[in-house]
Each structure stands twice: as C-alpha cells, then as structure tokens.
C-alpha cells in the first residue's frame, strides 16, 4: 500500500475527467449534461467500490 492517498487522488481525478467527458459526449445539451453529472459520478464511484470489494474478497479467498 505505497502512497495509497496519492493513488486514490490520481484515480479520482482521472475518473472524474472520464465521466465528465463521457457525459458531454452522451448529452448534446449542456444543461441536461450538468444535471445528470452528479448521478453519473455517483454511479461510477459506487461501481468502482463494488469492483474493489469483489477484488478484495477474491484476494482473501483464493490468493
């Protein structure tokens, strides 16, 4: 767990950029894009947490 804080910071930054650009790509209307952005960010980070949980369970179970 070297520099976990820095890695998390990089992850949040990069994924926020990916989600924002993805939202702009899927919505041509700026106001609608801004309106759905929080929900998309929430879903992305929730999904990431789920993947993290599954990976940790797999690691502790089989590794």
């Amino acid at each position, binding site marked *: 767990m070297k520099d976990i804080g820095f890695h998390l910071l*990089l992850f949040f930054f*990069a994924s926020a950029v*990916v989600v924002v*650009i993805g939202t*702009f790509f899927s919505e*041509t*209307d700026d106001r609608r894009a801004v309106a759905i952005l929080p929900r998309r960010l929430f879903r992305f980070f929730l999904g990431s947490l789920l993947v993290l949980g599954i990976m940790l369970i797999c690691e502790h179970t089989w590794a």
Partner: protein
Amino acid sequence: MSASHPKNPPGIPSVALLLGWFLPGAGHVYLGKVRTGVIAFLVVEGLYGLGVFLSGGMFLEYLPPEMRGRFSGLLTPEVGNLGALLAHMSHYGYGVGYPRPYPDLMDWGTTLTALSGLCNLLVLTSAHLAARRREPCLGPGPSPTLAASASLLLPGLGQFLQGRRARGLVIAVLLLSLFAVGCFLGGGSNLDRERHFYYWAGQFMLGLPALMTEFAFGHPRLSVEISYADGGVVLSSVAGLLNVLVMLDAFHYAEHGPESECDPIVSAHTATGSIATENKGGPSA
C-alpha cells in the same frame, strides 16, 4: 449524377470511405469533387512523403523486436492513410534486421507520417458525410469536419466555435490538465514515440498541445528512475483518447445541431405545424 436532388445522395458512403482510405482524395473524386480530391491527395500524401523522407522510413523500427508482427503497423495513427502505410510496410518493413542510428529529424518525420494518417481520417469523414447527406440539418458554426479538426487542433475549440463556449472551456481545462498531470508524473518521458510507441499514438490525439509539449519538453535523457512513469504515460494517453470523443461530439453537433432541431419528425413538421396529423396518419415520405 443527380447530386443536387435531395432524395438522391451523390454516392454510396462506404464506397467513398473505402476509396479514400486506400487513396486519399479518391472518395471525393468518386463523388464528383475532383478539385477537393486532388488537394486532399496532395496534402495527405505530401505529409506522408515528407515524413518518410525525414525519418528514412524507419518509424516501424521504433517497435521492439518482440512486438513486430504482421499487423503491428496497423495500430498506429498512420493507418488513417492505409494505402501509404501498406506501401510503407511493404517497402521498408522493420528495417534491415539490426539496430542503426536514426536520422536527425526522425521525430519530425514520424510526427508528419502520423499527421498524414489523421488528416486523411478527417478527409474520410468529409467524403462520407458528403456521400450520405441528403437534406442537411446543420448546427451552428463550422462544418462537421472543420469542427472536428478544430477540436483535434485544440481540445474544446470545435465546441467553442459552435457557440458552446462553456462546454469547450470545461473540455479544454479537463483534458489539458489531465495531460499536464501525466507529463508531470512521467517527467516528460511519456513524450517519446521511441519509448512508448502505442501510448504515443494515444497522446497524439490531443493535437497541438501534445505536439508542442513533446518538442519543448519531450525526449529527455533519463539518469534516474521515475517513480510514476507508467502512471504518467497512461494518464496522458487517456487525455488524448478522450479527445476522440470530443471530436465526435463536435462533428455530431455540427451535423445535426441541437437535438430538438435534428429530430427528423419534429424538424420536418415544426414548419408546417402538422405533427398531430403525422401522428394520426403516418409519414408521407
């Protein structure tokens, strides 16, 4: 050809696309736009020819031996100019079989060949659009190809020119800062096609900012290990690849305009006020 008739498009889009992919400008010539085709051919092949001249045709020798396969060259930006790339691979291949010094202007040369591929991709989008467009429903600002080109030149510029200034600014700030963080983490080592052959292609999609940064701070001589070099090259590549979405967004908006205007049923009947009739009786072609 009845190019001017709205019901008859000037050609088959996929044919225009394939012709232009193998021979730049051939798609436009097929559509009857000979002058545009000839100019496109001269520009795209001129860039490629100059690039090959400066690099001695050695850009595929950047690939380490274990990565040299039959299709390895097809994952480069040069693939946009497929005819030239195939001729290149056939003529130069992976070099003479042993390491040799690169020409002094190798970086410029490989940049130009990559630029040739990207330019031809934009020419292809123009040919495809011209072949399939019947009744244009264009958004504000420049044409779709120009809007995408502007976003390639500078992330968000296409959106800015379309009047979507807030979107353009947000895109520019986000992508450029992601790229800057990547360069900072990589200490500039990410800005080198020889070191990161395929990742470089991703960064290249960020356009002018990536090229300017590369020629200002790239190709550093490294004497110490950089802790986050891998993270740096990934982040800067992601920034470049996200710019492809930005270019597509600019192209789509320029072609279709705001969603309410590009809906064919709404746009066709807003003027006549016959939406209710349409819903009851169905479309009348």
